[in-house]
């Protein structure tokens, strides 16, 4: 009979649905004047075809670094990134043309991700030409008009400069640009947090619509838990470069197991009585997020965890599957 932990690990690997992206033990460190900053310390998760996978975390949790490594912005310091089984864990420049086309990215700040000196037409023509979706000339023009119509913007916007349109519309152009090479996987790095509530709702609904229409899979990175509750199929939460808990969104919000998830859920200010009752038993937030340069030993959260015990200080917890599809990385989880 296999020891318990190996049994659980085997289950982790086998999965019925077709996997589009799998990340295994991904690591990333940055050299700074004050020492080595561990941004990502071993992260493992999979994303199935047609699924919206959410990564939630506060600043310094490393969620954006994970997203950047998947799109090839940084070189990672270890671990693998498998896109449809093929390892693409190297900077974008060295990746195959196919994987560069298949994975696209939408940044948080719409204003900063559009070149102010180019018209929307020029902005959209770059991805189309780069990934061979159209040749120069009339075919390109039709493809551009078709791309901008996908996100519901009128063709007259093509002759405008980014400064001339509103924040929400700029983000729609960024989404159109990500759709241009007809990718199958899009990394969305806090796409709506720079926008107002009402425009945020429009963009979120448009993303859902596009996901169904083009059978895309998303990696949705954000710090806004309410947004994740309404948009994402499976949620993971990161703290100080490590995954703490991973589950289907329903389980994640109804039965949080990891103390940090409980603390985060109870700290969110909500706007309706129903939500108040929905929150787990309150775990009061104490202490500050530690400096990633001198990480606490053992579990990253032990400096702020009300249930921390000696074992948490010296040994790093392992990711265990407590219930079907519900993984948690905490020594006290399975008691």
């Amino acid at each position, binding site marked *: 009979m296999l020891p318990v932990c190996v049994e659980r690990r085997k289950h982790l690997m086998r999965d019925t649905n077709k996997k589009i992206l799998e990340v295994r033990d991904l690591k990333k460190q940055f050299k*700074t*004047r*004050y020492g080595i*900053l561990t941004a990502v310390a071993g992260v493992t998760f999979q994303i199935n075809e047609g699924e919206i996978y959410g990564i939630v975390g506060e600043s310094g949790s490393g969620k954006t670094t994970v997203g950047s490594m998947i799109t090839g912005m940084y070189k990672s310091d270890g671990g693998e990134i498998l896109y449809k089984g093929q390892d693409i864990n190297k900077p974008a420049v060295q990746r195959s043309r196919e994987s560069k086309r298949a994975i696209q990215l939408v940044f948080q700040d719409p204003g900063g991700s559009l070149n102010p000196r180019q018209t929307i037409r020029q902005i959209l023509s770059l991805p189309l030409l780069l990934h061979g979706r159209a040749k120069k000339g009339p075919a390109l023009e039709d493809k551009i008009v078709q791309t901008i119509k996908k996100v519901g913007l009128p063709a007259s916007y093509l002759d405008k400069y980014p400064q001339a349109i509103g924040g929400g519309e700029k983000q729609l152009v960024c989404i159109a640009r990500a759709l241009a090479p007809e990718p199958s996987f899009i990394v969305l790095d806090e796409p709506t947090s720079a926008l107002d509530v009402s425009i945020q709702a429009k963009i979120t609904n448009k993303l859902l619509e596009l996901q169904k229409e083009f059978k895309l899979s998303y990696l949705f990175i954000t710090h806004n838990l309410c947004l994740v509750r309404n948009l994402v199929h499976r949620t993971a939460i990161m703290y100080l470069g490590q995954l703490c808990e991973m589950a289907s969104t329903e389980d994640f919000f109804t039965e949080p197991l990891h103390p940090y998830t409980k603390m985060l859920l109870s700290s969110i200010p909500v706007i309706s009585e129903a939500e108040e009752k929905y929150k787990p038993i309150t775990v009061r937030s104490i202490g500050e997020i530690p*400096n990633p*340069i001198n990480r606490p030993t053992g579990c990253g959260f032990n400096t702020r965890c009300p249930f921390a015990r000696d074992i948490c200080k010296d040994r790093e917890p392992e990711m265990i599957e407590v219930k079907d599809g519900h993984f948690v990385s905490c020594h006290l989880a399975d008691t």
Partner: protein
Amino acid sequence: MQNMALFILRRIGYGLLVLLSLSFVVLSFIRLIPGDPVRMSLGPTASEKVVREVRSELYLDRPIPVQYFYWLRGVLRHGDFGKSLFTHRAVSKDIAEFLPRSMELAACSALLILVFGVLLGTLSALFRDTWLDNLLRFFAYLGVVTPPYAIAIFFLLLFAFYWKFFPIGGMPAFPEELRVTGMLTFDALIEGRFPLFFDSLWHLILPAVSLSLGSIAYQARIHRSSMIDNINKDYISFARVVGVRKTTLTLKHLMKPSFIPTLTIFGLQVAALLGNAFLIEVIFRYPGFSRYSLQVIMTKDPYGIVAVTMVFGIVFALVNILLDVGVAWLDPRVRLQAPE
């Protein structure tokens, strides 16, 4: 403080490296150009043998790296920058004689730039868009636009010839026994020779002012825009709302951050000052180092030119290092380099 010392050491090391490579470039550059400086300085009458002799004495006939080696050894061992063909004596003597006089002029102008630049800048920033601000900005504009030599001529016409308020130029004779630092005004002061002190100061005012007027104007403009930037910053309104008195707010909270860009631009101004001084010294017949360097450059005197570039390079590097230290002291973000 420890990383401040490291910061300075690194800058000095780097500055030396740049100066050495500069000296090599300039030395080889001179050797490559046509024309024979030795023949030019000794005149057509000198015999071929004498010319060859002088040339070998100055290692001019040897390959460039060898000549550079001997020159460097001379500099490092006993500060001998080689012989100037123009003044027919050791270049280091020329430097000792002329450099302090220019330092005096440059220091005086630098002081004027800093004091009046900041003063006018602050005034026109605090009284923004009033008549005073517009007046100061008009003069600032005039100063930036008028070349130093034009200012010198206008001042000469107005104060020296027409009103005869200031001397026309030149400097009082430098009594030999007084030479301590080589700066006439300074030596006269510390020796207590007040009539000489005032006389030399009087000769110094017109050249210093005309040299620095343009820079004062530009400095005032930079300081004014930096003050205005900082007035609208959140930390000023927060300090005001929380209850900091208006005077403390302006003198400490506003001045200190606004001084950072001012100091950086001041560094560039002083550097440009060293360069522009040569015209002023020519117009006012001021026996300074820039005039000497001009003559040396015109007569293509090899060791003279190398020495001149070295001196300007060293002064330039020192000024930059001093200012970097000043900026680092002013702005903890630079000094402490917080981890990102």
